[in-house]
C-alpha cells in the first residue's frame, strides 16, 4: 500500500502518483466475485484489477473536508487475462483538472502492469467532485 498522500489542491496536470502495488490473490478475487455476482473463472475479472488500482489511488488523494468524489466516466482497455495470484502495479497520472464553482473534475490516466512488467490494462478515469452548492 502506498505511503503518504497528496491533497486535491496540490494535484496538477502531469503529476504522477507513486506506483501502487496490489496483490490479486484468491481471497480478494473470491470476495470480488461474490460482491458483483460474477461467474467464477481462472482469471481475475478485469474490473477487479481496475478497482484494486483505482481504490488505492483515490485513497492517496486527500479531499477537502465534506467533499465527495464520484465516478463520472471510465475508459478501459484490457491487454491480457490476469491469472489469480498476480501482483500488479498501477501507475497513474493527472491529465486534466477543472475547477468550477459547482463542480470540479479530475481526469486520471492509469496503466496497470503485471510482475513481468507487461501491461495488462490501461484506462482513463474521470472523477467529479460536486461543490457544496451543487
Amino acid at each position, binding site marked *: 500500500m502506498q505511503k503518504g498522500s497528496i491533497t486535491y489542491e496540490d494535484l496538477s496536470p502531469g503529476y504522477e502518483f507513486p506506483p501502487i502495488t496490489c496483490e490479486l490473490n484468491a481471497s480478494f478475487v473470491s470476495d470480488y466475485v461474490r460482491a458483483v455476482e460474477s461467474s467464477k473463472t481462472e482469471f481475475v475479472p478485469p474490473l477487479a484489477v481496475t*478497482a484494486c488500482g483505482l481504490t488505492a489511488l483515490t485513497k492517496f488523494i486527500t479531499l477537502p473536508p465534506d467533499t465527495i*468524489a*464520484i465516478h463520472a466516466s471510465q475508459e*478501459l482497455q484490457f*491487454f491480457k487475462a*490476469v491469472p489469480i495470484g498476480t501482483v500488479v502495479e498501477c501507475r497513474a497520472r493527472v491529465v486534466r483538472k477543472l475547477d468550477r464553482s459547482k463542480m470540479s473534475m479530475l481526469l486520471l490516466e492509469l496503466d496497470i502492469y503485471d510482475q513481468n512488467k507487461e501491461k495488462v490494462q490501461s484506462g482513463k478515469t474521470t472523477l467529479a467532485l460536486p461543490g457544496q452548492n451543487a
Partner: protein
Amino acid sequence: MLSEVHQGKLLQPLVRDITQDRINLYARASGDFNPIHVDETFAANTPFGGTIAHGMLVLAYVSEMMTLAFGQSWISEGKLQARFKEAARPGDTVTIKGRIDSIKEDNGNWYADCTFECSNQRGAVIVAGQATVRLPTETRITKNGS
C-alpha cells in the same frame, strides 16, 4: 458464450438488485469505503440525499454481460468507454442491456462494436457506453442470424 453473431444482435441482458448489503459487500471487496456509498448519515447530507452504489459495481455488471457473451476474448482484449449518468441507489433494480452495432475485420481478426446501457426500474439510464471485443475464432458471423 455466443456461437453466432450478427449486426443488431442483442446480448443476453442481466438484471441485478442494488441493496445496501450489496454495496457494503462491494466496499469490503474493493476497499472503497467512500462514505457516499456506505455511510447513510453522511450520504443523507449530500446532494444525493442517501447512499449510492459504486460506479464500478454497476460497470462490473457490464463486464459480466460481455464475459458471458464473448468469454476470454473480453477479459484479455476488451475495450470499453462508459459514462456514469445517474446514481444507482439501494432499492433499485438495474437492467444491463447490450447490442452488437457493427462487426468489422482488422488484420485478419473480427471485432464486434457493441453499445450497452444500464437502466433502473424507472427507465433512467445509469451507465451508458460502448465496448469493443475481438470475436473468438469459433464464432460464426452471419447476416441477421441466418
